[in-house]
């Protein structure tokens, strides 16, 4: 059947219409290539053909779409082929005979596809590819219309390939921009980590992982310098065998980094000692530097691509250096934070272990910290103390408020001892010291209060005060060694007083009057005892037993005992004048003083125990007192012997005393 010209035209037009649809519908360049080649060969009645894409960077022709032949590896065309294609870029080449500029693998493919016409696909001066069309069906010649149609199709294909190339370029640029964005985000993340991650190990690992990922490295390690030796500590590794050999900071590569103040890219040509030690060829090494001091190094290995390993480049080193700079600052911060935390913990452990309560006040007077001893003394939980203003916390204690306030106003240390602490209880007594808190520049940043609970000491003092003078109590509390309450033999002076005729006198008095009379008498006598540091051992009825030399012995014990007795007799004269005015009978007493060895210590039962002295010396003292008449002071030989230079005595006739075979010498003080 004869095909009319109009039918032929309609056929070509419908082909061109289909071409438009292929170009619009296809998503991928492969779809375009396959669709266009199928349509082209169908339109011009050919069975074989191939569309090649030309890659400018590799100067290769790759198979985009083959039909009737097998797809093969990309071909490197002869240079002259590209030059000739340029010549025919607005038309086509009909291959009657194989031209000389088609050689090698390309020639083989041309022959295999039985290419009759080659259509260069050029966009301006840039070759995008070529379309090769094989023999027409049954060896017929191509008509000029066929060739025109081929040129039209090739023109549209060129446009489509160019568009595709543009899109691919945009996609590549997009990927490139995304990778740059990823780099920036990584740098940003690390800068955020500077203020958030404060664990050096965690930080090092995090930075290393990010660096490996962002630089497409196959593995990496972070090496830190040690103060004590040149071996670099492997603080973090990624994908790297832990067993690799030790690395010293004295290796040539690290010295070079230090000298040039920049990292290095190592390629197989370098053959350096680090590469040998790590058994790797491709490395990039950057220093971790903060405050101009190298803290260590980041080492990454093998830059990965889809086609294998390639060398790191300067851009990789720049990026790694930027990461390392950020990381070094972050790690320096973390290290500093760790040191501060440790120092803080050290201070806190000291504060919590001391018995002194420490309270700190901020500049506006609110409590911002308190140690364990402080909460114990305050008998409150820290959470109920911190945040309160001191004026609220100590509102019951005017003395304390005044002390804090004066330290605050005068900006000076203020101390006070034996302050009642009503905030805790009526019985609590403290020593308090308040000092300004100064910052490194010397500016006041609040106050520090040190408080010591002396309630127990105060109780001891108050208790002891009943028996000994304040001076003795203080001496005992200051030096425990002086206090031996366990029982010992010691030389003491004993003084006894006994009111003469008190029993008959008291019989005529009302009981309450008896008590008030004794209290008045004892009060004045005991004041004198304490004045001369005597220890009030006992009050038995109207009798006093005083000890000098226990619990604390001094050289003038006996002298003080005699002085006490003399002053007592003087004082009773004064008291009796008062009593006379009150129309009360006078009080008269005798005194006996002896010196000698006694056994001293806490004597009694577990429930009732007193510090006292026992022995013959005590008994003789009591006997001398019994022998003394009203207003008389009798002393033994031993007392007289050590005090005869200071006091005037009248020797009396020796007397018999109970428990002694021989008479004993007695001396009377001249008053």
């Amino acid at each position: 059947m004869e095909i009319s010209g109009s039918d032929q035209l309609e056929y070509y037009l419908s082909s061109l219409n289909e071409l438009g649809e292929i170009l619009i519908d296809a998503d991928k360049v492969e779809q375009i290539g396959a669709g266009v080649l199928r349509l082209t060969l169908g339109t011009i009645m050919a069975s074989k053909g191939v569309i090649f894409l030309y890659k400018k960077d590799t100067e290769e022709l790759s198979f985009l779409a083959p039909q009737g032949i097998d797809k093969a590896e990309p071909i490197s065309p002869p240079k002259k082929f590209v030059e000739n294609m340029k010549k025919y870029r607005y038309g086509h080449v009909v291959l009657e005979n194989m031209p000389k500029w088609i050689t090698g693998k390309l020639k083989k493919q041309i022959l295999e596809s039985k290419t009759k016409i080659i259509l260069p696909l050029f966009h301006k001066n840039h070759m995008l590819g070529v379309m090769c069309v094989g023999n027409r069906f049954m060896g017929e010649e191509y008509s000029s219309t066929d060739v025109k149609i081929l040129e039209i199709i090739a023109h549209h294909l060129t446009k489509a390939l160019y568009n595709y190339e543009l899109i691919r370029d945009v996609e590549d640029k997009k990927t490139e921009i995304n990778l740059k964005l990823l780099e920036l985000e990584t740098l940003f993340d690390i800068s955020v980590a500077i203020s958030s991650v404060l664990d050096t190990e965690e930080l090092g690992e995090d930075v290393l992982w990010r660096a490996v990922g962002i630089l497409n490295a196959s593995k990496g390690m972070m090496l830190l310098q040690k103060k004590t030796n040149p071996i670099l500590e492997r603080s973090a590794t990624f994908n790297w065998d832990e067993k690799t050999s030790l690395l010293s900071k004295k290796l040539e590569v690290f010295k070079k980094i230090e000298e040039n103040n920049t990292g290095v890219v190592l390629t197989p040509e370098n053959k350096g000692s680090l590469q040998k030690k790590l058994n790797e060829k491709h490395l990039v090494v950057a220093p971790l530097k903060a405050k101009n001091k190298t803290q260590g190094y980041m080492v990454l290995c093998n830059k990965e691509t889809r086609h294998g390993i390639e060398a790191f480049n300067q851009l990789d080193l720049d990026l790694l250096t930027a990461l390392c700079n950020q990381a070094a600052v972050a790690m320096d911060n973390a290290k500093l934070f760790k040191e501060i935390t440790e120092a803080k913990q050290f201070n806190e452990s000291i504060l919590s272990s001391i018995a002194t309560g420490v309270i700190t006040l901020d500049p506006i007077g609110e409590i911002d910290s308190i140690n364990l001893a402080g909460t114990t003394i305050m008998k409150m939980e820290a959470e109920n103390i911190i945040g309160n203003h001191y004026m609220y916390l100590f509102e019951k204690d005017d003395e304390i408020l005044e002390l804090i306030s004066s330290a605050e106003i005068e900006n000076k240390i203020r101390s006070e001892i034996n302050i009642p602490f009503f905030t805790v209880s009526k019985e609590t007594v403290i020593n308090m010291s308040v000092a300004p808190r100064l910052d490194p520049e010397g500016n006041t940043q609040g106050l520090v209060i040190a408080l010591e609970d002396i309630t127990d000491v105060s109780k001891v003092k108050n208790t002891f005060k009943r028996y000994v003078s304040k001076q003795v109590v203080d001496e005992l509390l200051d030096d425990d060694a002086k206090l031996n309450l366990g029982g010992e033999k010691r030389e003491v002076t004993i003084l006894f007083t006994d009111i003469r005729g008190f029993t008959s006198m008291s019989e005529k008095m009302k009981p309450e009057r008896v008590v008030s009379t004794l209290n008045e008498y004892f009060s004045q006598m005991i004041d004198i005892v304490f004045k001369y540091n005597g220890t009030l051992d006992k009050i038995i009825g109207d009798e006093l037993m005083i000890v000098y030399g226990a619990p604390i012995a001094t050289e003038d014990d006996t002298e003080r005992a005699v002085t006490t007795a003399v002053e007592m007799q003087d004082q009773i004269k004064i008291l009796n004048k008062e009593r006379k005015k009150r129309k009360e009978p006078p009080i008269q007493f005798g005194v006996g003083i002896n010196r000698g060895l006694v056994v001293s210590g806490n004597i009694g039962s577990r429930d009732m125990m007193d510090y006292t002295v026992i022995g013959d010396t005590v008994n003789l003292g009591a006997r001398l007192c019994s022998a003394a008449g009203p207003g008389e002071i009798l002393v033994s030989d031993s007392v007289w012997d050590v005090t005869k230079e200071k006091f005037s005595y009248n020797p009396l006739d020796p007397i018999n005393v109970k428990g002694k075979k021989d008479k004993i010498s007695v001396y009377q003080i001249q008053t």
Partner: protein
Amino acid sequence: MADFTLEVKDEGDIVVIETNGYLNNVGGEKISQACYEKMENGKTRFLLDLENSKVVNSIGVSIIIEIIEKLQDVDGRLGYYNLAPIVEKTFNIMGLTKYSTVFGSKSEALEGMS
């Protein structure tokens, strides 16, 4: 860190791939190989459990993009769960999450992919 390993499990029609290690060239290739084998058997929905892959590089990402493209040809889907923040950020920036889905947990992922 040990070499990259993975475990492939079928959860009904969904293939769950649990990975362990650096998602780089080697890791990506192993994942794509596992996916393509399953795709040949007609599987089209894949979930990656990346709990034990804390680091990914751009080569790993490009391989996942290839998997996504292949899955698009067969109307399939790819999803992930248990992503480390760095990995999720990388996926977002590289545009993976436009064509695949990040889930918060395995149960959410299985429900979302059904």
